[in-house]
């Protein structure tokens, strides 16, 4: 597609439920990233996929968070047993990789609210 697509755009869930967030990157982009932005804070790195390399999971805040990517296409971020502190905007981005100096292209994000 023309841009990075994320779904759903908004998600309200009850504490303790699992949620799955989806990201469709730009076609041909080998690198895919997940970030989150909690209220009043900056963008926090979560996980990074580059081609067939093992993902960089160093930003995942707990073992309740996991992500996978199918080849060089769709990625899903799963949060199990959601907690109120998981409420945030979850942003996905993709890039052509190879240390592109033009940075990432971000999706519009999924706003997750845990009640």
């Amino acid at each position, binding site marked *: 597609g023309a841009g990075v697509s994320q779904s759903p755009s908004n998600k309200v869930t009850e504490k303790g439920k699992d949620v799955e967030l989806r990201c469709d990157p730009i076609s041909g982009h080998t690198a895919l990233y997940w970030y989150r932005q909690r209220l009043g804070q900056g963008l926090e790195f979560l996980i990074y996929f580059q081609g067939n390399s093992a993902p*960089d999971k160093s930003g995942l805040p707990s073992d309740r968070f996991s992500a996978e990517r199918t080849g060089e296409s769709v990625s899903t971020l799963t949060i199990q047993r959601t907690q109120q502190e998981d409420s945030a905007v979850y942003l996905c981005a993709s890039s052509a990789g190879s240390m592109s100096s033009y*940075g990432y292209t971000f999706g519009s994000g999924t706003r997750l609210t845990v009640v």
Partner: protein
Amino acid sequence: DQQVKQNSPSLSVQEGRISILNCDYTNSMFDYFLWYKKYPAEGPTFLISISSIKDKNEDGRFTVFLNKSAKHLSLHIVPSQPGDSAVYFCALRSYNTDKLIFGTGTRLQVFP
């Protein structure tokens, strides 16, 4: 330990004047420095970047300055326009990785 800091959470500038947004970092292992702009309910969009081998890069009304010895990055917008009102994030990339570390953001408001 915040590696990248934007110490001004907000900035208000009159239309036509210069806006200066600042970003400080603590680690010397960054090779690319970028600025992103974010409107409400949208993802951040890339604005301008500079590599560590340069100290200035200009693109129209936007100029990014890099002072490596001071570990300081700034974005100048001149003349500022009301449409520039947004949150601006600096983002830094470490050598040998495509991962970006973002600052906390500065909300710029340009008033008529």
